[in-house]
């Protein structure tokens, strides 16, 4: 099992290191659809989009615990495409409904006139379809080309509205009650955050060793050393939390573990970004220097599928609903089947 997951993570690392360079990330974020398309084809060719799909349906039949390493690599390379979301969506959809191309995940509102509105679709501009959760059990597969799209705060995001006719024609998916779209999305986003956090730490360490002031590398100063130590603590804890969120042999994550993962990674994102910029000084604040690709992304991911406060509320409700000591709830989160 470990070997399988290592193999997939290595495959992802190779593709991403070659194809998802900082230049490509910048191009895609600037709207270069050719770059997006060609990178996506590489990821599909590596078999990554169907990693969670059963073997009988042509997939690799991995569990979430085995794709953690792939998702971590996506974050480590600031992949601006929806590989994790597509993996999750493919696993949720029956083979007949599984479209080609990248898939976004979003919550939608079904209006009285029959239209469906998704106020915020993350990375809509690099996706072809959206898996929309309209209410507890109603999920729709909607093509982006058929939606009325308006720009959002981040360049690749959009607000999408589908006319009633499109909604009627859309494939409906019956999902188990209680499955929540944000739980699915936060699971993969947290794993990617863990990867990006690792890259930010590695960049900052490198910079602290290279940059000289007062005649020595700034990493020799205790103030800088302590900032890097604190960063590494958060990176380590966030990665552990992300592994808990993205664990198990199945493709549906546990909500309380995801709450832990997304809350902890979002908490770390703030601290680690802030300290990374503090150590880098003005150069880290430039477009030209790559640090921003990861720190901006960490902020965007913190704001995706629930901030830490959202998941604190979820976790807090679960804890208060139990009786007795908190250790048993802690163990429910940490004691995963391996």
């Amino acid at each position: 099992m470990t070997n399988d997951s290592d193999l997939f993570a290595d495959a992802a690392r190779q593709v991403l290191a070659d194809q998802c360079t900082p230049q490509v990330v910048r191009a895609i974020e600037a709207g270069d659809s050719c770059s997006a398309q060609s990178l996506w084809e590489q990821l599909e060719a590596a078999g990554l989009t169907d990693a969670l799909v059963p073997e009988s349906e042509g997939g690799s039949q991995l569990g979430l615990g085995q794709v953690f390493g792939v998702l971590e690599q996506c974050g480590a390379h600031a992949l601006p495409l929806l590989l994790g979301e597509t993996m999750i969506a493919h696993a949720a959809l029956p083979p007949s409904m599984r479209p080609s191309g990248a898939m976004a995940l979003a919550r939608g509102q079904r209006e009285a006139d029959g239209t469906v509105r998704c106020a915020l679709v993350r990375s809509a501009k690099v996706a072809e379809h959206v898996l929309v959760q309209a209410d507890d059990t109603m999920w729709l597969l909607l093509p982006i080309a058929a939606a009325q799209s308006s720009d959002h705060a981040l360049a690749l995001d959009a607000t999408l509205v589908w006319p009633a006719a499109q909604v009627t024609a859309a494939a409906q998916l019956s999902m188990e009650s209680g499955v929540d779209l944000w739980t699915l999305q936060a699971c993969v986003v947290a794993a990617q955050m863990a990867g990006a956090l690792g890259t930010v730490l590695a960049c900052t360490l490198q910079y602290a060793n290279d940059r000289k002031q007062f005649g020595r590398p700034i990493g020799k100063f205790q103030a800088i050393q302590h900032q890097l130590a604190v960063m590494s603590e958060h990176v380590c804890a966030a990665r552990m939390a992300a592994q808990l969120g993205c664990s198990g042999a199945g493709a549906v994550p546990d909500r309380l573990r995801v709450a832990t993962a997304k809350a902890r990674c979002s908490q770390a994102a703030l601290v680690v970004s802030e300290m990374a910029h503090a150590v880098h000084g003005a150069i880290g604040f430039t477009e030209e220097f790559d640090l921003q690709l990861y720190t901006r992304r960490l902020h965007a991911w913190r704001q995706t599928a629930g901030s830490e406060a959202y998941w604190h509320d979820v976790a807090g409700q679960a804890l208060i609903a139990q009786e007795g000591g908190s250790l048993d709830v802690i163990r429910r989160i940490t004691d995963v089947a391996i």
Partner: protein
Amino acid sequence: MSSLNSLTLALTRIPDEDEALRTEVRSFLQDAIRDMPAHVRARSWGGYDTAFSRKLGEKGWIGLTLPREYGGAGRSAFARYVLVEEFLNTGAPVGSHWIADRQSAPLILKYGTEEQKRFHVPRICRGESFFCIGMSEPNSGSDLASVRTRAEPNEHGWLLNGQKIWTTNAHHCQYMIALVRTSGTSEDRHKGLSQVIVDLSLPGVTVRPIEDLSGDRHFCEVFFEDVQLGHDALIGNEGQGWEQVTAELAFERSGPERLFSSIVLFDQWLDYVRLPGNATPSSTRLAGKVLTQLAPLRAMSVSVQERLMQGGSPIVEAALVKELGTTLEQSIPADIAQDLFSRQDDDVPVELLMTLKYVTEASPSFSLRGGTREILRGMIARGLGLR
């Protein structure tokens, strides 16, 4: 990137056979400390109760991991992890035997002579013999290598002179394992240091408890004036004291005692929040904030335990756990006070507030004992290749 390996801890599951111990321990503790109020339980491994330690000795729960031939139970380190986790979460008063169980007996087994093992370890396992650790001195705190207490070799063994301070429970213990200088001067730093077992009943030993800010008396100053130790007082090799001491540290820093120092308070506060009408939006959020930090920390601590069991020396990983863990432990009383005193109703149970008072007052020590925050950050920075 190899310096970052310490940060990639694997998910680890405590084996079922070790996990099985939990039910028995829990039911024993429910019975044994049923009448102990929460503000007393909150002291946990600071709590001192020799009768309780003897009871645990009878159960075979001291020296759980030590070989049977020396009075131990021959169980795995994960079994001890489960045991200790239950002690801490219940707030069992395990302070009397804590150091001997965690550090002294394993140290004696690792470095001691056969006579030392046969003499000390079975007594420790029975809960009869308690140990303290003599590290800090008035002029040697974080800079431990500068210790000046000397053991000079003479015809009878070693003649001990000097002073230790902040020695936890020295006034209740029969023995101290002290880090002392056996050759050279403090200029020689790590060289010339050795560990000796000091029988605290010997002539020339004076122990004075120091009252802490909450009124408790747990740490002490200990004076040695021409204390004659036998040849057999030396533990391990002469001059190897520094290496022996540093090898202990990973065991000391990554355990559940670095996560759960405020857990009795947290659980008691949760019980209050669970009462009808008491769960406000901000208290629910706080409960989740603590849970989502404690769970990953516990997973990290279990993972470091696995690295220790595989014979690794995860010193940096252990420092990470301790630094994060104690930071969270310290935030809990502050956040709970914020919650309780943001309410209109000031009819909070007095017992909860007594526990809050104790943990608030004790919390500065969480990031002092076992290596200060600043020392740990320095160690992590060294692990990252910065020093």
